[in-house]
């Protein structure tokens, strides 16, 4: 295909790009028909794409050809209809990855730019084939780039043009696969660490309504992924569950600080409270987890594949303890304990339900049977019933170290604030949980550094 370069050079940018797309289509069709496994687009063709479609500078001396905004729009339209008209999935996929598969070179930036525009356009126009290809792309690409694509869509539909959210909302029905990957990307993007990394309320509402309507949506990618297909390193999680758990757990504390920064009177009347949204989302996550045993059993994966990663949960717990410390510093409001309690509740619930339903694998010997989530001693000072708590702590440590001798537990992170330790019920509860070691409501934080 390299020989067409000469014929493309004299043409203007748009017609050259058009011509190249045309030839690409034929070339890939032939490639698929030839039956060579795996069908691979050769590097010369990739070069041509970079030169005539992405307009990456071939070398430093040659001036880069540029398209006007209008020409670019025309090109996007041509690409749209090109994918729309191609009836064969394989051809379409190959073409998409030939155009947008990241090559690790300078052209990747323009590749990402063009991809963002194309997907955004496909969302607007409801081009299902492109969304499907983009869903696959989101599965294969490094999460950093996936997050960038998600960012483009959020910017286009949630931030830039008010009232365009319903357009994005439609991707749920247009391409559930894309929708699922989009949620995963978005939950990866917004980790609630800063205000910028807090999802816009419109996006949050949209995601909540999607999942509430159809909880299986978050499992679509997982359900459609063949068992053999190993995940590329650093790609997005196969489900957004981890990200969603993080959202729900951190939200009470993250939004708490947020709220303090914005005076109440500035909040617009029609902006709904995020609290109930996260509460609904959290319940949906638990309900999705409840669906898992059947699905995992069907796939023969129960107990063999965890959808929640221990590493990310460990990261979450340390983030959470940081947030809890922060919350302690600001704790002067009367309901100061409510938010940390809620965060801990949610983490505890998510972990317990995940574990019970096979989403979280804890093998006894090598890894963790449980994550011990322990309070810092400093927090104990606030406890009314000091003796009991200390006793508790000792007991926990004793039991835990007996059960997991190779783990050293640094501190007991007891749940004083939300479990009333005056109640002997809870003492018994913890006692029993530790003894049986299978039913853990309480989170045990493993501090690896001291291990």
């Amino acid at each position, binding site marked *: 295909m390299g020989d067409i370069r000469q014929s493309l050079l004299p043409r203007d940018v748009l017609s050259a790009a058009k011509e190249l797309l045309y030839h690409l289509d034929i070339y890939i069709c032939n490639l698929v028909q030839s039956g060579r496994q795996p069908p691979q687009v050769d590097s010369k063709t990739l070069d041509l794409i970079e030169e005539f479609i992405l307009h990456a500078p071939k070398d430093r001396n040659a001036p880069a050809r540029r398209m006007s905004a209008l020409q670019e729009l025309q090109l996007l339209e041509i690409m749209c209809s090109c994918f729309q008209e191609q009836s064969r999935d394989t051809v379409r996929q190959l073409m998409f990855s030939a155009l947008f598969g990241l090559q690790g070179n300078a052209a990747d930036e323009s590749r990402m730019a063009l991809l963002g525009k194309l997907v955004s356009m496909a969302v607007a126009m409801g081009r299902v084939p492109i969304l499907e290809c983009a869903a696959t792309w989101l599965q294969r690409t490094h999460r950093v780039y996936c997050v960038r694509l998600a960012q483009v869509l959020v910017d286009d539909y949630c931030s830039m043009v008010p009232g365009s959210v319903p357009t994005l909302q439609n991707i749920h029905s247009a391409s559930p696969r894309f929708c699922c990957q989009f949620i995963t990307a978005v939950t990866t993007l917004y980790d609630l660490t800063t205000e910028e990394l807090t999802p816009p309320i419109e996006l949050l509402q949209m995601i909540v309504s999607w999942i509430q309507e159809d909880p299986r949506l978050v499992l679509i990618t997982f359900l459609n992924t063949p068992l053999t297909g190993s995940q590329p390193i650093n790609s997005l999680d196969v489900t957004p569950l981890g990200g969603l758990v993080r959202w729900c757990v951190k939200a009470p504390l993250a939004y708490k600080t947020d709220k303090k920064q914005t005076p109440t009177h500035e909040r617009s009347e029609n902006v709904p409270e995020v609290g109930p949204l996260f509460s609904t989302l959290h319940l949906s996550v638990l309900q999705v987890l409840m669906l898992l045993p059947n699905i995992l059993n069907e796939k023969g994966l129960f107990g063999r594949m965890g959808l929640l990663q221990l590493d990310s949960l460990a990261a979450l717990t340390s983030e959470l303890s940081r947030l809890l410390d922060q919350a302690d510093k600001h704790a002067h409001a009367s309901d100061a304990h409510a938010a940390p309690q809620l965060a801990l509740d949610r983490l505890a619930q998510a972990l317990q339900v995940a574990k019970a339903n096979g989403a979280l694998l804890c093998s006894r010997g090598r890894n963790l049977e449980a994550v011990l989530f322990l309070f810092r001693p400093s927090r104990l000072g606030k406890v009314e019933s000091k003796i009991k708590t200390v006793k508790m702590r000792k007991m926990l440590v004793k039991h835990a170290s007996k059960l997991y001798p190779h783990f050293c537990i640094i501190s007991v992170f007891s749940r004083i604030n939300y479990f009333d330790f005056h109640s002997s019920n809870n003492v018994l509860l913890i*006692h029993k949980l530790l003894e049986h070691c299978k039913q853990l409501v309480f989170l045990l934080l493993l501090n690896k550094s001291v291990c």
Partner: protein
Amino acid sequence: MSAQKDCEFLVKKARELVSVDSCAAKAWLITARTLYPTDFNIQYEMYTIERNAERTAPAGRLLYDMFINFPDQPIVWREIGVITAALRSDSQDKHAQFLRGLFETLPGRVQCEMLLKATEQCFNTLEKAEMLLLLLKRFPESVVQHGLSLGETLLDAEASENVDTPVNCFRKLFVCDVLPLIINNMDIRLPASLMQKYILKAAEFYIGYVTRGPSADGQLQGSQDSGNLKSPSMSRGSQRYVIDGLSEKSSLVADPWERLLELLAVVGVRCEWQGDKGQRSFVDMLQRMKELCRYLPGLDGETRSRYCSQVVICGALTLFRSAFLYVSAVQPALFQGHGASSGPWILVEDLSSVYSDVDLDKGPVKHAQKKRKQADGREKTMSSDDEEGLGKGRGRHILVSKTEMPNWSETLEGFRAARESWDLLHSHDALEAEFKKICASWKTDSWLWFRIFLTDMIVFQGQYRKALSSLHQMSAVQQHQPGQQSPSGQGSLEHHRVLIQQASCHYALGEYRVHTHLFHLTITSLLPAVTSGLPQYSAFRKGLKIYWIMCKCRAFMFLIVSRQLRAFADNRDDLSLGHVVVLLQYDWPQGEMLFLKSVDKIYHQGSFQYENFFNYVTNIDMLEEFAYLRTPEGGRIQLELLPNQGMLIKHHTVTRGITKGVKEDFRLAMERQVSRCGENLLSVLHRFCINEKIIIIQSLP
């Protein structure tokens, strides 16, 4: 146990959160359930949250889980009890609908199992049956296993509960719900005898249902309506009827005769009845039975008995249905209470012949009375059933007023079909014996409505002695009808029917003395009704209730006319003559010849004294005739028609001026009378009957 306490703690936590943040509450419960999968309270709490929020699908799923995992929990059974109660009830409230929707979300297998188990736990026969019925209706495959036993349970329950009417809750469930399921299921083997037993049970129920009296409830409503009767639709309220033990909706049976016919068709097919090709009408059926009857004498053995039961069952059903059609037309108040849209119609001997009898001046002539009419009206009449091939009643017709009885042809057709069915059932000893068995088990002797038909049939056949004994039975039945003895209610209506028909029969038999006696009774018993009826009459000219009073009075009037005319033939004093003249106004100019004869008589007497003349004679022709009698051309007849006039004349016979004054009075009275011509004749005659009761009875021989 500590686990128990932990669970309680978690449930309590969820319960606290429900009102604040139901999602958080549910999240806790989900967590708790993964911790204690075998704890019932956690699942029940989850279910409670969904149920209270009336979320059908999740609540259904949780109920399903509870049913599967905790089949022994009493709370689950209490819940299932509530749901099955909602299924059985016809309540339209939101919660009941939710519960029914909840049940629908469950998988069929679970529904089936749930109903069965719920049935087992039920101790009330009726509830148990209703529950099982729900099961049978939803899962037709269960009919084979449970259908027959349910049917028998219901019939047993009916027998052991000593219910006094076939229209009871057990029978209703059996006939309307269970029986169709059983007999339409070809996998169930049913012997013919059992099917016959069942169809008779069904027939007894449906007949009892259609012929039930207006309910006490309805009567109450009816009497309230009477005060402010505005439109006929008001009386709809009296249609409400509730079978004891059932709800109003399930007490309602739509198209009873049609449903009976459907059952009969299925039974016919299953019993391999002769020539029965499924659905046919009652009319066709009668025709078919008549044909079958012809083969009957030539058959024997089993075929004969099969034919017999077919003819008896079908014949009996046509008989009762046709008789019902007839009676509901002639005595609608029996079934509709005060909402009856037309008055009672009473079959009596045609008395119009009295006019001609008197002409003949020979006293009563029995053989002349072949014609008969229904109580009143002969305007555009005549419907004959000459064509009927049966000996009894040949050549008799029934005269009805087509204008006043709009459904006359169906009524007469019903009467004819009923008579034919009756004759058919009595055409063979075997048939009659079978039919009598049915009658005995149904206690048809106590059916007042059927007695009315039988009496009319006998009257029609001209068997007056038999008719009298039938009437006697009718009053006996009436006395045993509870709650219908109020003077203005049902009872008196039928009582009048009896009296009038008795009088008519005695008259036809030439027994005038009894006739007179009955007359007396009729007048005295009718008077309260008439007096109370009259004001209403003027107040609501078009009201429905008045209509029957009017009809009744006309019947009554007619009897008086006939009696007076009879008296006229024997006794010729002025008082009787005057009464006759007053009464001849009724049905004018039917008795014109008689009137002219009377005038002729007065002319020959040369004088006539009747002080009530101006009170009751408003007929312009008559007034004219009397005015003429006074003139020189008319013969200067001395008429003493004003009260006390005779006395005055006798006293001042020499004073010219006074006679002149008398003349003047007569002229004024005549003039006044002419202005009264527009007055309602019936009310005038009512007044006459009431005021002059004693004189009338005295003047009777």
